[in-house]
């Protein structure tokens, strides 16, 4: 059945492509459309070459290449993120601008997002709710599914095998005429996950197999100079067996229609209409289904050459069919926003973003953000900038916290946050090299953090109980050097952060005050050296995770670890075709480590892939 569906999709898109007519320039999409309204914010962008060489879940990718801390429950089983010392529910995941976090849990499973499915990946650190809405307190993961190739046609096949029964197969077809661009991407991934884990008698074999199937399709139709329509589709099915033998099935369907109308050369209206269907089955009969209808409207106007403003709204309607809710539930969420960017002087750029949510049953806080960048030095080869951002953010209560039976709390309120960050950006370049360094310092408080606790009746129920204060610094250094045919790229990312509990409101003893939040390492660092010489490339990655407490009382500490990964790649050009062979050696030093207590990650392991690309 699945094979038939795949064929139908492929044929549909091929037929559509045949009708394309050449009349316009090739379609080019910006990877990060909100950048100009994020003046003063810290943004990490994944290297496109490294991204294209990997088939890892995004949790493992981010763990290796960013300063973010990923809480991985075993290899590819479940992963959540902790940005700037916040919790799993404090990072929004946006797919083409739509928040795809689970509405019932209020967080996303980073192990359920393969890097292969996305054309670009970026992380915006810190409060970003004025731009992205609920949950963007620690930051936001920004996924863009399609960046049309400049080539006319690109077809690629990838086969990867690896340790612990790893088998990945993927195919991608891209076409970019001057009117229509489309991409179809199909992939399957199987992993036996039968690696050795520590036990009382030495080692025992882990047994947590994963079987994954995905298909994504994107099409952009540039009707004329004024109208563009895009379609995005992403379906994945992920079946996992957990350590206790329980099974978890995740089926996620995401559809989006995006219409963009440009008029008077600088004014733009965009409308996104989306439908998502998230189905989760735990064991054989415990099911959760959340369907979402969403509409995002934007009107953007460029006033003179130095001021642009965007007005918009987002409407989301949720239909939940969750066993534990005992009846079908619906919820309507509306948000209104304004983004603005003003290049006040040659050296000074500012943004002011405002957002207000309207949700039945509780109040979403008014969420402003003000940011600026001041260029202290601005020459052709050197740039020195000072940045500042003050912002609020919020997290709406999850649907589970409202409707779960027993225990759901209809009086639960949104969490809210206030953050200030400042820093320096320094860029220097010449013909052979480019250096980008960025240092950011932040302080943030999160109030009314929702905790689940047992009530008088013994039932677990959520309440707005916890206040947290966090502070820290982030340092990024990116250096590129080109010597004849040799290209060197190095990436260093370091984060220092401390998140303290300031209060838990119903705890009269104050025993948690001043305690560090669980799973919030003080230091995280990642270093990557990427070298490319003609058709050879080598990538060395090392990342460090500091000790972290696993409990609120800070009684139990997990060991720090340093993990190194090596990747070797060789490509062969065969006229317009290209063949690449890639070998990854992960956990090169064969370390035993755990991101979550007793959830061991695999020791040294290997992946060998071969990719055939046809370009025209």
């Amino acid at each position, binding site marked *: 059945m699945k094979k038939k569906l795949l064929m139908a999709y492929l044929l549909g898109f091929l037929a559509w492509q045949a009708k394309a007519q050449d009349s316009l320039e090739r379609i080019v999409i910006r990877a990060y459309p909100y950048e100009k309204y994020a003046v003063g914010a810290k943004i990490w962008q994944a290297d496109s070459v490294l991204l294209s060489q990997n088939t890892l879940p995004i949790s493992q990718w981010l763990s290796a290449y960013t300063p973010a801390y990923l809480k991985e429950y075993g290899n590819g089983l479940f992963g959540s993120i902790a940005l700037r010392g916040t919790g799993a529910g404090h990072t929004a995941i946006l797919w083409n601008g739509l928040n795809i976090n689970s509405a019932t849990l209020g967080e996303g499973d980073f192990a359920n997002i393969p890097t292969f499915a996305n054309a670009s990946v970026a992380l915006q650190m810190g409060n970003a709710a004025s731009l992205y809405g609920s949950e963007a307190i620690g930051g936001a993961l920004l996924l863009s599914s399609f960046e049309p190739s400049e080539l006319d046609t690109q077809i690629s096949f990838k086969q990867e095998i690896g340790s612990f029964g790893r088998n990945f197969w993927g195919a991608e077809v891209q076409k970019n005429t001057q009117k229509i661009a489309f991409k179809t991407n199909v992939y399957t991934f199987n992993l036996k996950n039968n690696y050795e884990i520590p036990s009382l008698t030495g080692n*025992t074999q882990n047994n947590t197999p994963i079987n994954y199937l995905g298909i994504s399709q994107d099409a952009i139709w540039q009707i004329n100079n004024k109208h563009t329509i895009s379609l995005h589709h992403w379906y994945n099915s992920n079946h996992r067996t957990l*350590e206790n*033998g329980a*099974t978890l099935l995740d089926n996620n369907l995401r559809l989006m229609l995006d219409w963009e109308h440009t008029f008077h050369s600088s004014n733009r209206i965009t409308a996104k209409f989306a439908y998502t269907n998230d189905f989760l089955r735990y064991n054989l009969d415990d099911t959760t289904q959340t369907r979402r209808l969403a509409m995002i409207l934007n009107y953007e106007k460029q006033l003179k050459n130095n001021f642009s403003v965007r007005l918009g709204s987002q409407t989301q309607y949720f239909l939940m069919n969750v066993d534990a809710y005992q009846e079908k539930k619906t919820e309507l969420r509306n948000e209104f926003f304004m983004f603005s960017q003003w290049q006040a002087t040659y050296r000074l750029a500012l943004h002011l973003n405002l957002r207000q949510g309207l949700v039945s049953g509780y109040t979403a806080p008014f969420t402003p953000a003000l940011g600026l960048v001041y260029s202290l030095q601005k020459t052709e080869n050197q740039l020195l900038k000072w940045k500042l951002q003050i912002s609020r953010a919020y997290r709406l209560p999850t649907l589970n916290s409202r409707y779960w039976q*027993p225990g759901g709390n209809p009086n639960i309120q949104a969490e809210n946050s206030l953050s200030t960050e400042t820093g320096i950006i320094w860029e220097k370049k010449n013909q052979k090299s480019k250096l980008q360094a960025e240092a950011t310092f932040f302080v943030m408080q999160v109030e009314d953090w929702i905790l689940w606790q047992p*009530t008088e009746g*013994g039932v677990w129920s959520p309440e707005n109980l916890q206040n947290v204060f966090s502070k820290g610094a982030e340092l990024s250094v990116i250096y590129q050097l080109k010597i004849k045919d040799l290209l060197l790229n190095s990436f260093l990312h370091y984060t220092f952060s401390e998140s303290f509990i300031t209060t838990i409101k119903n705890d009269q003893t104050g025993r948690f005050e001043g305690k560090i939040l669980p799973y919030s390492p003080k230091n995280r660092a990642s270093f990557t050296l990427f070298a490319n010489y003609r058709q050879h490339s080598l990538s060395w990655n090392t990342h460090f995770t500091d000790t972290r407490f*696993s*409990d609120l009382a800070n009684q139990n500490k997990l060991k720090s670890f340093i993990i190194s990964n090596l990747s070797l790649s060789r490509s062969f050009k065969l006229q317009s075709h290209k063949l690449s062979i890639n070998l990854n050696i992960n956990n090169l030093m064969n370390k035993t480590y755990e991101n979550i207590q007793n959830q061991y990650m695999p020791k040294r392991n290997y992946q060998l892939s071969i990719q055939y690309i046809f370009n025209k």
Partner: protein
Amino acid sequence: MKKNKFSIFIFVLFLASFVACKKSDDPAPIISGKYEKGVLVINEGNFSEGNGSLSFLFPNDSLANGIFENENGGLKIGGTIQSVNSYLSGTNKKLAVVTNRKDQVILADADSLNFMAVVYPEADKRLDNPVSFAAIGEKGFVSNWGDINQAFGNYPKGFLTEINLKNNTFSRKIALDGVRPQDVIAANNKLYVTVSNGSDIYVYDSNGNFLKNIPVEQSPDKMLIDKNGKIWVICNNEPDYVNFTDNEGTLLRINPETDAVEQSIPNVPCGSYNSKIAYYNDKIYSLRDKKVFVIDTTNSSVNELISNDFSLYGIGVNPNNGDLYLGEYIFASSSRVRQLSKEGDLIREYLVGIGTNGFLFF
């Protein structure tokens, strides 16, 4: 507990300072009898991390956490502890630690906490969501819910695992089709198994042969043995799983000589599942959320003893002096343990491992 022998206090203090100062690469000293006297605290741990642990309250009121790891060179229990039971192997006192989330039965020496052996599920699923352990002679019996996909369905595939305690190895599985067994207990050279998805207690002989079933109330849960060798079982009856209103169960007394139900005490406040009870001198103590109730078995009266300021999960009574030990219902943090007098007055508070669900007294 407060009037403990000073010599043991000094000895333990000496040992504690020695352990605290020793370098990590020093070989761990084998100290027999270190945990011979005191209170073993069972910390279940949380399910996502499988971080169950053991703590010990020494007679001088000092506390040691993570004692299994401490005494075994850092070896972790690595599961959520469902129960810990002590048994005799010859004249030596042993412990059986039953965990799920990592299904295993760990056997250790009770006095030194030294690890002896572990039984794993292996390919034939000889353990599958194990719950409780009881020993009869050289045989150990472990109740298992079986496949979690079926355990809460219409037809659970539970079973008992028999362990040879002479060589600490797996012997066989005893099928309990249609049953989700909860507690097991040994009395009068027989094995008693509560059928938590029904209203029976199954009785087996010392060789694991089925003898009979004893009809009881709905959802029989934990069992204990009183000073007269009689079995008490708390039945959760039919809890309101929709609104989780305060549940009331039934306490039953069973004579293991005749296997007859001799006494029934209705309207006993208890949990909806995994109900905990403790016994001291003709009184049974039960938990419901923050409250402790005392049931006088001589006149079947039920009274509230205390209303605590945090939710409770574990309960035990020291058979030597009647002091009550209560464990906090929390899984994101270390639990508080409160030691109370028979009258319910606070004597002392400790911070132990995560999710304290029971106590053993030595």
